[in-house]
């Protein structure tokens, strides 16, 4: 269905995350790894649809449905390596809108410094 009334639309959540890796990770590589992780863990019948809304400097936002939030978090946690580069995925937080997600989790990191305690 193309357009549904707001009451029938699925509720969305935005997961802010950070990857600590051995090298630089591309958005496509990450997307492929998450798909692989989801299919490995939950299979095609229990699969999850998601979208990488933003990704730069190994930090990004994944958008998914509220009911699939746990699965996305687990799939992200279970990623060990991307294209042979070892990865430590860190989930920074979850927000209801992209705007609040950016404000809460992404912009804070821009000024992050061990000196100011962030």
């Amino acid at each position, binding site marked *: 269905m193309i357009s549904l009334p707001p009451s029938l639309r699925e509720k969305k959540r935005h997961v802010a995350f950070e990857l*600590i890796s*051995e090298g630089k990770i591309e958005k496509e590589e990450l997307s492929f790894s998450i798909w692989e992780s989801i299919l*490995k863990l939950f299979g095609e019948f229990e699969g999850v649809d998601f979208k990488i809304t933003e990704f730069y400097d190994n930090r990004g936002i994944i958008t998914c449905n509220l009911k699939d939030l*746990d699965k996305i*978090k*687990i799939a*992200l*946690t*279970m990623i*060990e*390596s991307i294209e042979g580069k*070892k*990865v*430590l*995925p*860190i*989930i920074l937080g979850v927000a209801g809108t992209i705007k609040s997600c950016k404000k809460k989790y992404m912009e804070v990191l821009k000024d992050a410094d061990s000196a100011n305690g962030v």
Partner: protein
Amino acid sequence: MIDFIRFDYDRSLNLGFQAYIVFGENSERNIKGYLIQAKDARDLREKLRKADGFVGVMSERVEVNRYAVMRKKVEAILDFPERKLDYSTLKLAKEKDVLIEFSLSTILNSGRNKRVRLLERLRKTLQVVKKLDTPFILTSGAREFYELRKRNQIYEVFSYLGADLARASYWAERLYRKFFDEKYIMDGVERI
């Protein structure tokens, strides 16, 4: 909250743990645990004689794990893919107040076919742990930096497998107090 790891971590990232217990390696920055890998009960008995500090036992055999749980010096039964536990071991662990470790690295490091079996076994074990209210701890069990995970992420995975997160937090908090809270003596008894 405490995490059990297998390498000396410099704590460069805040992952939601207040302290780390390192098994199998020397550590100056973290608490050093005493790791015992035993083939049989006799081997375990001999190794326990020399052991001190926070003792964790690793064994593939159910009999050895059951024996380990009964020994006073043993504080935790550590997790690895080949570990086997039975109902009576978990029941004894409750009586003797021995922690059962469930680590994320065990799941991460198991292959595809093995992982399915491991997860099935893990679900069953967590069900029994919940029924008997056995002390347990959810850890990363990391052998290197990239196997570490945030506490919330570890809890999320085990919650999906049926772990009681409220109890997990309670046991982890209790262990932390045992190490760092001078007032703590035992449950319900504190120095004032």
